[in-house]
């Protein structure tokens, strides 16, 4: 059987030649992403701003305007109605009512009673209501969790490698998170707790490639002590390229399937991780590795003074 080789043997791409161009592009993309996130804002779900959501499944397709009118007649406040994949499934989102938190559930009950009356056979599939207090805590906890995860992983990399690698990992993560946030701001996809879980996963998984590449760079630094840093990084990247491509493809394959035919409820989670893995693959090559050059890593950077004298290239 002829085996598939996505990356031919002896591939030798000069990745580092484009590092400055890639840096400029990454910087622009990051700035644009942050700009989008700040100015356009994220479409935050009720998990983070409070409010109520009802998910309804109709027997027949229903026109969104008609549904909006019906909901408006209930006098439950300004409703945001969005379709979930098809014309039979809708999400009705209502603002968090004023006054005591305990009142917040009455509107959901109202819809629960009214919708099957207006549309026979319609089913209220899910109802959620989150008070302002809880949503504030959830938002704080989520931000803290993402921050802690990034920090924790950067510290781990620092311990296992060198501080330059830790900084590189942190910058890579920041880049990946910023880009994914920008995507969510741009598409107006709703950000809920599941998406935060996806961000935490990205923190873990987008670093997967970085760790593998760093491991190889460390190995090559020890092996080829006379080699200049740029060719050495190129060598490490090329050596790990086949693995990078194959792994990213398997993960993207599995996630792509989940995104396309999986439950709609976790579409946001699936697409966020999908994107994170894609961006992470790019950044492990064009952020993680060049950062080491800028931080002045040289083949003899990590040798102890005594070791330097006896440093001689080992043969593989």
């Amino acid at each position: 059987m002829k085996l598939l080789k996505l990356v031919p043997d002896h591939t030798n791409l000069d990745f580092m030649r484009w590092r400055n161009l890639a840096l400029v592009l990454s910087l622009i993309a990051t700035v644009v992403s942050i700009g989008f996130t700040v100015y356009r804002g994220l479409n935050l779900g009720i998990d983070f701003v409070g409010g109520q959501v009802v998910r309804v499944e109709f027997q027949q397709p229903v026109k969104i305007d008609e549904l909006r009118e019906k909901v408006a007649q209930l006098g439950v406040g300004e409703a945001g109605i969005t379709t979930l994949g098809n014309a039979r499934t809708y999400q009705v989102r209502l603002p968090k009512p004023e006054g005591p938190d305990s009142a917040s559930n009455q509107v959901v009950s109202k819809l629960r009673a009214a919708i099957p009356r207006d549309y026979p056979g319609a089913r209220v599939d899910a109802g959620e209501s989150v008070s302002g207090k809880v949503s504030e805590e959830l938002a704080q906890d989520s931000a803290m969790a993402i921050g802690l995860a990034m920090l924790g992983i950067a510290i781990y990399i620092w311990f296992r490698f060198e501080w330059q690698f830790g900084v590189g990992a942190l910058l890579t993560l920041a880049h990946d998170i910023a880009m994914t946030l920008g995507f969510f701001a741009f598409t107006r996809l709703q950000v809920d707790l599941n998406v935060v879980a996806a961000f935490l996963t990205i923190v873990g998984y987008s670093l997967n490639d970085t760790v593998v590449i760093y491991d190889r760079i460390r190995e090559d630094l020890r092996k080829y002590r006379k080699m200049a840093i740029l060719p050495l990084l190129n060598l490490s990247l090329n050596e790990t390229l086949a693995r990078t491509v194959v792994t990213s493809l398997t993960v993207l394959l599995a996630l792509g399937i989940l995104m396309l035919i999986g439950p709609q409820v976790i579409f946001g989670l699936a697409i966020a991780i999908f994107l994170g893995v894609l961006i992470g693959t790019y950044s492990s090559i064009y952020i993680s590795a060049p950062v080491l050059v800028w931080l002045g890593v040289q083949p003899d950077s990590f040798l102890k003074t005594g070791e330097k004298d006896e440093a001689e290239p080992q043969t593989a």
Partner: protein
Amino acid sequence: MLDFPKWKVWLIALVIAAGVILSIPSLLASTPYASAWPKWLPQYKINLGLDLAGGSHLLLEADAQDALKQRLQAKEDEVATELRRDPRIDIGDISTAGGRLSFLVRDPTQVDAAVERLRRLSQPVALTGNRDWDVQVVDSTRIVLTPSAAGTAQALKDAMGVARDVVRRRIDPGGTKEITVVTEGGNRILVEVPGVEDPEELKRLIGQTARLEFKLVDQSADPAEVQQGRAPPGSQVLPMADGSGFIAVKRRVMVSGDQLTKAVQSFDSQTGAPDINITFNTAGARRFGRATQENVGKPFAIILDDKVLSAPNINEPILGGNAQISGSFTVQSAHDLAVSLSSGKLPVKLVPIEERTVSAELGQDSIHKGAIASVVSVLAVIVFMLVTYGRFGVYANIALVVNAFLILGIMAMFNATLTLPGIAGFILTIGAAVDANVLINERIREEIRRGRRLLDAVDTGYHEAFRAIFDANVTHVISAAIMAYFGSGPVRGFAVVLMIGVVTSVFTAVYFTRMLVALWIRRTRPRELHI
């Protein structure tokens, strides 16, 4: 590399067999074959989260204001009872304003004695060295009791424990349902009830404090004053439950709901209206009998949560310990109140601050779509690995399938909860678990290109790849652990699957495949490697 002792082979086989056996009951659940699983084999099952099983999730928070109020009221009763005992000390002008209990001692010579008796009532708070109430004398005749911070904290903690039990009894009087009622963060209670799609039912049961009190109506009060909210000394003004105005009642409690043994919904024998039949315990019945005996002809008020349900006349002494509570009830509200009264009063009012429900249909749909997506993902990855690595791809694929069983088996063993994001975690793990094999196989390819001999190449491949595999997996565990710590319900389910998946995938992708490769090489002694 070839050195793979028999006991290791057996150990690995044993682990895999255990994983498969443990996972099967969960896979068979809700299929017609569930009963075909032999009874003598382990029956562990994975729990389904509410987002898959359907049901209601409620987060309740204690109303701190109400907790303080209830505590002051209880203290007032305690103080009144204590000082009424021989030698009796008369007090007046009782007030609970400002979060403190204060009253006048009528005879100034008794102030010291009163303070002495009240100090004895206060309790030391465990480990803090403080007492739960501070007793002070103000203006030489007024005694002020202030709850100490330590006492209040302890009281809240105790109240939450009681509240949790009360909530459980109210939702599940029979104690048979698989519900979750746990305290969270000191002042919250999390309630999860599978199968209940409309949480209104739950909230009706939990929403009532259900503090029932019987007090005499103060007939001396001037009706005009009462409507203004002013009551004579020793009395208080309470609203009528039906909104028909206010009524003055004596502060002293005749009997309270704490002395109930039973409450059932019934119908009034004359009007046919729904009411509630209550039965007092022995002490309560005696107290109720004595109070009604002493006050024949006078009206008494039946008070629920500081609202007067009704104020009937005592026509004759009620000695049997049975009484009817009537009010403007529906059958439903009378039934709910009966359940609430039987389960005891809530020591603190609980307010819902978060509520999530999922219908069983949506849950079923999620399971269905999630299962299909999982199977398709596994198949896609298997095909991809096969065309990329040939024989070594087959090994990776066997490891992948074994890994899937191990994840399910471990989850079943720990009775872990599978949530919808958990299914996503499962698929992600499938996609990422082969990474270890990719790393190993690519390294072997590389070593062969460098001209190493077959055995040496395989050995180096496994050895050199392991470092990166280990580091990469530690980063996954860090993010998953943080997720498990901060996340709630569904997200925690995701993190749990990721963590289990990381551990099992290192086992299957590294140790298990190495065993397969070693056994193959030992058996066939291949000259060259097709990888």
